[in-house]
C-alpha cells in the first residue's frame, strides 16, 4: 500500500465500478420517483382545510428535514423487522431516501402552488369546477413549471446522497469501492475513482438543470 497510483489496478477495477454506477443511478431514479409522488401528497396535505392534517404534515416535513438521512435509513431498515416486516436493503433504502427527498420536494411544490395567482382559483370556482378537477386541470399545470429548478437541484442532491445506502448493504458505487478496498487493501484508486465518477455525472447534470432553468425562464417571459 502506498501513495503511488497503479493504472493496471485502475483498469482492473473500473468495469466493476462502472457496473455499480448503474445501480447508483437506478437507486437515485427510484428514490426520486417515490419522492416526487410522496412530496406532492405532503404538499397538498398542507393545503387542506383540516387544521390537524395540515399541522401533522408540516411537522412531519420539518422533522424529516432536520434529522440526518443516514439515521433515517438505519431506522427504516432495523425498525421494520421489529414489527414483523423484513425489508431488503433496497426496499428499506428506497423508502428512506424517497421519504427524505419527499419532504424537500414538498417544499418546492408548496412554493410552486403558492405562486399560482388567487384569481385562478376564483375563476375555477366561478366555472363550478370541483377541487380535484381544479387542481388537475388549472392549478398544477401552472404550478409545476415553477417547480422545475428546485426539483432539478434535488435530483442532483439525491444522486449525491445514494452512497449513504451502502451502510445497510445496498451494492451501489460506494459499497463496491469499499468491498474492493477491503479485498485488496488498496483504497487510493477505488475511492478516488468513486469521486471522479460522481463528478462526471453530477457536474453535467447540474449544468443541464441550469440550462433547463434559463430556458424555462425565457419561455415564461421572466427574462429576455
Amino acid at each position, binding site marked *: 500500500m502506498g501513495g503511488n497510483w497503479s493504472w493496471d489496478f485502475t483498469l482492473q477495477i473500473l468495469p466493476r465500478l462502472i457496473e455499480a454506477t448503474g445501480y447508483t443511478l437506478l437507486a437515485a431514479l427510484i428514490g426520486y420517483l417515490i419522492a416526487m409522488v410522496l412530496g406532492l401528497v405532503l404538499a397538498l396535505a398542507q393545503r387542506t382545510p383540516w387544521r390537524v392534517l395540515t399541522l401533522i404534515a408540516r411537522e412531519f416535513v420539518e422533522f424529516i428535514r*432536520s434529522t440526518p438521512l*443516514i*439515521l433515517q435509513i*438505519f*431506522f427504516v431498515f432495523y425498525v421494520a423487522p421489529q414489527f414483523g416486516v423484513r425489508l431488503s436493503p433496497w426496499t428499506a433504502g428506497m423508502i428512506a431516501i424517497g421519504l427524505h427527498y419527499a419532504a424537500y420536494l414538498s417544499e418546492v411544490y408548496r412554493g410552486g402552488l403558492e405562486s399560482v395567482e388567487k384569481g385562478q382559483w376564483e375563476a375555477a370556482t366561478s366555472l363550478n369546477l370541483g377541487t380535484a378537477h381544479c387542481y388537475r386541470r388549472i392549478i398544477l399545470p401552472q404550478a409545476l413549471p415553477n417547480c422545475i429548478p428546485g426539483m432539478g437541484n434535488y435530483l442532483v442532491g439525491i444522486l449525491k*446522497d445514494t452512497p*449513504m445506502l451502502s451502510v445497510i448493504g445496498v451494492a451501489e458505487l460506494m459499497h463496491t469501492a469499499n468491498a474492493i478496498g477491503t479485498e485488496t487493501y488498496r*483504497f487510493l484508486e477505488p475511492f478516488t475513482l468513486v469521486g471522479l465518477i460522481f463528478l462526471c455525472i453530477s457536474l453535467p447534470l447540474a449544468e443541464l438543470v441550469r440550462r433547463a432553468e434559463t430556458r424555462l425562464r425565457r419561455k415564461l417571459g421572466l427574462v429576455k
Partner: protein
Amino acid sequence: MTYPEFISAHGPRLLDGTLVTIQQTILAALLAVLIALTFGMMKISPLRPVRALATVYIEIFRGTSLLVQLYWIFFVLPLFGLTIDKFTAGFVAVGMNLGAYGAEVVRGAIQSVPRGQWEAGVALNLSPARRMWRIILPQALVIMLPAWGNLMIEVLKGTALVAMISVADLMFAARQINGTTYLSAQVFGTALVIYYVLARFGITPFMRWLERFVARRMGRV
C-alpha cells in the same frame, strides 16, 4: 424493557454521543464559515487564477458526496503521509463540504450589496481590503444569514456521517446500542428526536437571535 428502563440503561451513552455531535457540529460550522468566506471572496476576485482555484474547490466539494469525501480524507490522505486522527478528519470533511456550499451563499450575498456602496467606498479612498471588511461584508452578512440557518442544520446532519469512521458521536452510540440490544425503534427513535431537538431548539433559535443581533448592530431595526 420499558422505555424508562431503556433510557436509564442507555441514556448516558446517548448523552455522551450527543456531546460529541455538538462538538463536531461547532467545529465543522466554524471551519465551514472560514472556508465559505475565503472561497466566496476568491470567487469574485479580479484575478483569473484565484477565481479558477475557487471554482475548482467549490465544484469538487459540491459535485461529490460528503461520505466519499470523508472516506477519502480518512483512508486516502494517510497514503500520502498525511495522517489525521478520526475526530479531526470528521469535522474537517463536514466543514470543507458545507464550506463549498457556503461559498456560493457568500458570493451571492457580496454581489447583492448595492453598487452604490462599492462606489462610495472607492470615493472615500478606502483600500479594497478595508472597503470589503468595513463596508461590503457587514451588509452582505445581513443578506446571507437566513441562508446560513439552513446550512447550519445541514452541518449538524452531516456530522452523523462521522460515525462511519468510528467517531463516537450520537449516531455511533445509537448503532452500538442497537447492535447489543436490538431495541431498534427505541434507540434510533430517540436519536432522531435528539437530532430534531438540537436543530429545532438549538440551531434555529440561535441563528434567529444572530440575525436580530446583526440587524440591530447594523441599525436595520
